């Protein structure tokens, strides 16, 4: 891919509005991208704080810090803050920043809607936090002790904080649907002339698929929680067995959303990896077409295997067999992606700057999480592992490297582009190592805890599990505190540092490296011609 035209519209540069108005009324994809990323960073710390309390409580057996209901509320909030508050907005932030730059478009297709889809988020986050805070006040009802899956009948019995949560989910859903529509319209209609779909950068491809997944599944979750709301207040019985409903139906609705959600979290990071690994291996991505195909396969199969989260509800043998085979089938295209990454690195001139360290870490650790995923997909094994700490270890190994490390890699990779300054490489490497080592100390022992029979989502545990839990909690403190270093590095880079070149990395390819570092307020006002 080469660019022949590089003319910028110099006349209209940098008339950015200033002050609060710049951010509140912004229709600029770069500013909105920044807002998304800062919002995600805030939520990362809130979600992390709740995880720290959880691990502090599990440091020793017995109930020391929080009572069981509060513990389960923390578990609920940790999941929702991390998934809806941190990972999805961070991925949307990367999309907003990078997609127009990568495809040579002046902005997102629907800039005002872009503004709306971001500014719904702080409102949603407020509702989410209120759902946690309200039970502490007199008359505030009970804590949300259901976990993020919100299974009825328990979720019907919870106090008013559940209503806050349901509305928060509605708002978050609306926000991500609007963002997805925007991204798809941009990608389908605003590519630079000559950029066919199969010439589109991988990150754009992953977001195209992610956005379609979001539009397909988020409304179903919205429908599910709406039914929950009706059951709670308007006397319907969608999920109430006494009124002819079926609580298991909610589980189907939830996981119809919940399983594709896993790929929604994962795919943008796969997109980041498809840029980071070729850059630092100084080779083009191995198997671009097979990557696209594998991704489409993952998304398609991922839509129809949701019930592997519910093996224990008593499905027929035929149904569980189908869900088991479908789930194991996903490991083939995912394996293909991993092999493509390894083949890209094969005989490359590799250097290990921080984004590449995270990328290699992902290939290793995400594969590990995939392996325990295959174990969990097997029905008779899952009957044993279901709702144990093994599941906790599994999905943290998938989501932490798969989603979060991918976002970290993307942030370090594009931070020079965004800020115009190189980050402190030495500090960033210290951050990588403390983060990865802390992560592994936290979650690796949980595999053993789960296999030994420690259930998840319970405040107390048998004294025989003490040693591994102590280890896990110590790891969690290292892991959690290491993110303060991330915050420091990001602030330091924004404030100053070595000047970044337009092409910040030696091996970097793509349109985003043709614009300035930091890019002008309006870029690609004249579209580049792609050959």
């Amino acid at each position: 891919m080469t660019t022949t035209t590089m003319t910028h519209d110099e006349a209209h540069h940098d008339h950015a509005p200033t002050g609060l108005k710049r951010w509140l009324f912004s229709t600029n994809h770069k500013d909105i991208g920044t807002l998304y990323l800062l919002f995600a960073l805030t939520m990362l710390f809130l979600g992390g704080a709740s995880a720290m309390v959880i691990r502090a409580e599990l440091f020793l057996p017995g109930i020391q810090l929080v009572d069981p209901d509060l513990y389960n509320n923390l578990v609920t909030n940790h999941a929702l803050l991390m998934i809806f508050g941190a990972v999805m907005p961070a991925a949307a932030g990367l999309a907003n920043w990078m997609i127009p730059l990568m495809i040579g478009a002046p902005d997102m297709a629907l800039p005002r809607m872009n503004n709306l889809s971001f500014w719904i988020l702080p409102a949603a986050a407020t509702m989410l936090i209120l759902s946690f805070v309200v039970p502490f006040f007199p008359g505030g009802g009970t804590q949300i002790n259901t976990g993020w899956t919100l299974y009825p009948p328990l979720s019907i019995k919870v106090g008013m904080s559940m209503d806050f949560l349901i509305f928060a989910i509605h708002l978050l859903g609306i926000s991500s649907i609007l963002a997805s529509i925007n991204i798809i319209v941009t990608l389908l209609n605003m590519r630079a002339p000559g950029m066919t779909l199969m010439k589109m950068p991988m990150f754009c491809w992953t977001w195209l698929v992610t956005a379609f997944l979001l539009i397909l599944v988020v409304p179903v979750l919205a429908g599910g929680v709406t039914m929950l709301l009706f059951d709670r207040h308007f006397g319907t019985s969608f999920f109430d067995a006494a009124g002819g409903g079926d609580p298991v139906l909610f589980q189907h609705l939830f996981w119809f959303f919940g399983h594709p959600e896993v790929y929604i979290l994962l795919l943008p990071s796969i997109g980041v990896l498809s840029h980071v690994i070729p850059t630092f291996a100084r080779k083009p991505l191995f198997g671009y077409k097979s990557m696209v195909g594998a991704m489409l396969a993952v998304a398609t199969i991922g839509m129809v295997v949701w019930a592997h989260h519910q093996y224990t509800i008593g499905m027929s043998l035929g149904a569980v067999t189908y869900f088991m085979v479908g789930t194991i089938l996903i490991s083939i295209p995912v394996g293909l992606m991993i092999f493509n990454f390894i083949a890209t690195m094969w005989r490359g001139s590799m250097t290990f700057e921080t984004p590449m360290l995270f990328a290699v870490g992902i290939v290793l650790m995400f594969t590990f999480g995939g392996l325990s995923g295959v174990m969990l997909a097997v029905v008779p094994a899952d009957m044993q592992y279901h709702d144990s700490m093994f599941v906790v270890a599994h999905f943290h190994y998938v989501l932490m490297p798969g989603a979060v490390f991918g976002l970290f890699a993307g942030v370090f990779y594009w931070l020079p582009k965004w800020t115009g300054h190189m980050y402190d490489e030495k500090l960033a490497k210290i951050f990588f190592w403390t983060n990865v080592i802390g992560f592994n100390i936290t979650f690796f022992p949980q595999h053993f805890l789960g296999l030994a029979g420690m259930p998840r989502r319970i405040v107390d545990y048998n004294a025989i599990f003490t040693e591994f839990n102590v280890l896990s909690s110590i790891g969690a403190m290292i892991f959690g505190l290491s993110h303060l270093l991330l915050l420091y590095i990001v602030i330091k880079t924004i404030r100053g540092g070595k000047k970044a070149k337009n092409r910040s990395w030696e091996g970097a390819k793509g349109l985003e490296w043709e614009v300035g570092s930091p890019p002008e307020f309006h870029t690609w006002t004249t579209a580049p011609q792609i050959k």
Partner: protein
Amino acid sequence: MRRSDQSAEARKRRTTWLLSLLALGMFGFGFALVPLYDLLCQVTGVQSVALRSNSEQGYAGSSAGEGASRVVTVKFDTSVHPELPWDFNAADISLKVRTGEIYEVDFLAHNRSNGQIIGQAIPSVVPWQATAFFSKLECFCFNRQVLEGGETTTMPLRFMVSSDLPREINSLTLSYSFMRLDSGQQDLPLKKDLQASNKTITL
């Protein structure tokens, strides 16, 4: 935005509307899943494991029994909870019955104590696979029984064994345990009896 001409704007608008409709459609699909889920479970026979184990008995019965009448042996077994000072026996120890026909058997109960006592019989069938094919048309176990001190009573049982009984079952046992229903304050059982009663329960 200089390069975006009229047709490009129209294309964008079209994509936006299509995607919005898709999102709305999926919201509707969520609600459509409520009847669809029931339909799927009932029509296509995607049954729960629990339902399946029940229906498998049915299949076994209908394929083997074919409705042909045959003779099987029904044995009667009685036991009394140690807390209940009653004697309880069947008039017949066993009965050869023709499937599909109605039979009547008497059971005798006698209250050994001086006061009024309420009891109830709990039935069970061995082997358990035969349970669904053994119908009690009238049974003293349907109601609680009240016996005055020293009273003896005859209690009838009318039953029928279905012709759909799986062929491999030729003999079945109907077992009754009589339990005390009132508090039993008047004559508390001895400690030894209590231990015995615990044993009975675990058995």
